[in-house]
């Protein structure tokens, strides 16, 4: 393994990540400040309708939102570097706590869905590529194009309507049953099925189409023709030779799908009342909760950068011609 080269690439990427993260967090502060939403009104809620002007002004000063934009960003940044991400206005909790409580559930959902999408996508893609133009290929391909156009929240509502309301076989939302107070693995597993499947299905088409294309091309290449000429079993040719070189583009896809996965997860979590970071993100955005919003955006940015790094590392490993030049 070319450890040194891989470490160098990771180091270079880390250096690039610093200005990117700075720019992104500042951008979030700037956009939030420019938005018409007022953090004081969002904080006061129904209390804001009866509060006197003095109370509102006092709140504004206490919450620190009367400070200029750059000062607010700098305060947040320096505190964040010391490990203090501030307090979420909308949750009335430290940001670290909000994210800590919710991130695990979002990762569980996203990871499950991503694994499902990769496994299913690869399987369907290989099957489709085996007989290009066959009924399976045509069926899978048109289904993939159809799903590509379907927004995840629409798929989510459709799934709730069909599986929860019509068939009544799966719960419509939440992490556990409404009356239950214990978070048990069994309950979480049944509640995970619908959101994870919807998210997986929304990511599926890209994997199917990439794998189908990659494997289809590889089947035309010389090594495969050579292997077939030597009389190697079709199964070995398909899985050992064609799939191996056909998977290369899929590796890049894994990295580039991470942002889509995150936004898809936001929509799916909202539809299924999944207690992940999505609900927190939406609330943070509409309430101009600077601290929470900036932390979540930084987190999402880091996830995207990491996804790209992993994809590039894998690609370099799988195809030595590419190397680790970043």
């Amino acid at each position: 393994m070319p450890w040194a080269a891989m470490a160098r690439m990771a180091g270079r990427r880390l250096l690039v990540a610093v200005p990117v993260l700075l720019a992104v967090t500042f951008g979030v502060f700037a956009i939030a400040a420019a938005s018409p939403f007022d953090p004081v009104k969002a904080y006061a809620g129904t209390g804001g309708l009866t509060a006197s002007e003095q109370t509102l002004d006092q709140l504004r000063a206490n919450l620190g939102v009367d400070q200029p934009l750059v000062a607010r960003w700098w305060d947040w940044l320096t505190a964040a570097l010391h490990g203090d991400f501030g307090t979420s206005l909308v949750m009335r909790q430290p940001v670290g706590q909000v994210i800590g409580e919710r991130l695990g559930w979002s990762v569980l959902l996203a990871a499950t869905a991503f694994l499902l999408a990769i496994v299913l996508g690869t399987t369907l893609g290989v099957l489709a590529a085996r007989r290009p133009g066959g009924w399976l290929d045509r069926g899978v391909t048109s289904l993939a194009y159809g799903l590509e156009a379907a927004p995840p929240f629409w798929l989510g509502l459709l799934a709730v309507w069909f599986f929860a309301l019509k068939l009544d076989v799966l719960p419509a939302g939440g992490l556990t049953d409404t009356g239950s107070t214990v978070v048990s693995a069994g309950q979480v597993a049944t509640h995970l099925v619908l959101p994870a499947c919807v998210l997986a299905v929304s990511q599926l088409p890209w994997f199917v189409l990439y794998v189908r294309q990659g494997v289809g091309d590889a089947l035309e290449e010389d090594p495969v023709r050579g292997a077939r000429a030597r009389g190697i079993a079709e199964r070995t040719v398909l899985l050992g030779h064609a799939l191996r070189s056909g998977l290369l583009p899929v590796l890049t896809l894994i990295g580039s799908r991470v942002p889509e996965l995150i936004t898809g997860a936001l929509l799916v979590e909202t539809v299924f009342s999944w207690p992940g970071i999505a609900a927190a993100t939406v609330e943070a955005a509409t309430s101009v909760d600077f601290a929470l919003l900036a932390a979540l955006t930084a987190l999402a940015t880091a996830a995207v950068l990491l996804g790209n790094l992993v994809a590039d590392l894998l690609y370099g490993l799988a195809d030595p011609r590419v190397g680790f030049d970043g």
Partner: protein
Amino acid sequence: MRGAAIRGAGALAALAVGAAACSAPGEGGSGSAGADDSVVVGIAYEPDTLSPLLGYGKDGNAKIFDGLLTHDADMNLKPALATGLPEKSADGLTYTFKLRKGVKFSDGKPFSSKDVVYTYETILDKKTNNAYKTELDALKSVEAKGEDEVVFHLKYPYAPFAERTVHAIAPEHIGAKQDVNTGDLTTKPVGTGPYELVKWSKGEKLTFKANPDYWGGAPKVKNFTMAIIKDDDVRATRLRSGDLDGAILPPNLAKTFAGDKGRKTYEATSFDYRVVTLPTGNKVAGDTDIRRALDVAVDRKAMVDSILDGAGKEAYGPVPTDSEWFTKGTERKHDLKQAEKILDEAGWKKGSDGIREKDGVRASFPLWYLSGDKLRQDHALAYASDAKKAGIEVKVQAGTWEVIQPRMDRDAVLAGGGAPADPDFDQFTMLHSQFVGGNDFNNMGFYENPAVDKALEKGRESDDKAERKAAYDTVQRELVKNPGYTFLTHIDHMYVVNDSFGELTTQVEPHDHGFATGPWWNVEDWQPKK
């Protein structure tokens, strides 16, 4: 494909165990529901915080907490953490409460006067981010006299002050050790109330269990869950499927349960009004003749019948017609001819397009409603259509509060409000001219009427019930002469609950409802049938 997906999820169950160890938001405790002593209800909104210091339980029915006083089903005050109603000094400036002895917080620590002092002082503290502190404006200081007596000192005589002492009391021994704005008390509250919080999964549900040592006797309903379901249709579906035992529903969905033998529908009357502000700064809406014409041109009965499906009442002022504070004789009939007569006599002449005009001013003004609020939209459109018949053009527009607020001094707004505990609570901030010009939501119509100002002041200061009634009669009569607001309807709130809990009651409800109100306002007193 679904088979594979379920297998995948099964394989991840192991992962889920690991994730559960790092806990769901606000996890803790154990137990399971489904028995007769468990109740699950669906509501639309959850509180922002569970800390009394930040405003939770300000109107009582706080489940986890008690106030010094509380309301019964008829909204009469009765003692809770206090042993009786307060003693009031002759000048109306001090209120003395004797406290109940032997009361303990759910963590076993005793309750005493220092918790009361701590709660009120912290709320009034400048550093406390409590948006409701304006409601305690009259309070100057709180003083403990020994373990079981507290004295409230007021800045000015304030007749309805006792109504404010239904406010939930927080534990000093926990609150004082943490940041009031971000501490644990906001999500893991500890109180003296009939229930203890088991878990608050934000955006999903709140779970309570009975406090076995409650001073008022342990509740019969041992487990109480409030599921937060924003969508009305989803809430109705989950009620029908048996997932919920009760829910708040809009009238049209509540009607679909009417023939259901296993469930009862409750219709709670309220002070919750819908009103059109007629800002003084608008040349048309600020004109007294236009205001009076609109007041009789609107068909309130039609609004109740068609928009509310009959679940409500015509509103002629902030006080609903069935309240003891209502001034008989201020009801206005829907009378289009009368409206046209007022406008004709005042010189508002109809133009070729049917819209009136006077001195070059066209009888036209915009009316805003909060976008996404179907009920307000329906009211606004009905109002515009009634106004058009009288020759006044009302242009209905939707917007968020951010868009609406800067225009409130000159554009009309379809607003809502109402507080049943005392007429002062909503009328003073809505009608007094001291709030004109402020950058807040008080007196949205910029209403200025010296007679009303005087009556409102008299009403909050006087101790004599008859004198107070006379003062609020004056306010309601003045609103007939110069209606700076067109009151449209008072809205009934509808709830559907399984009848296995017997005959339940509802209180007269405020504008904000569903969490502390509804048939479950006193779930601690429910007697589940076996």
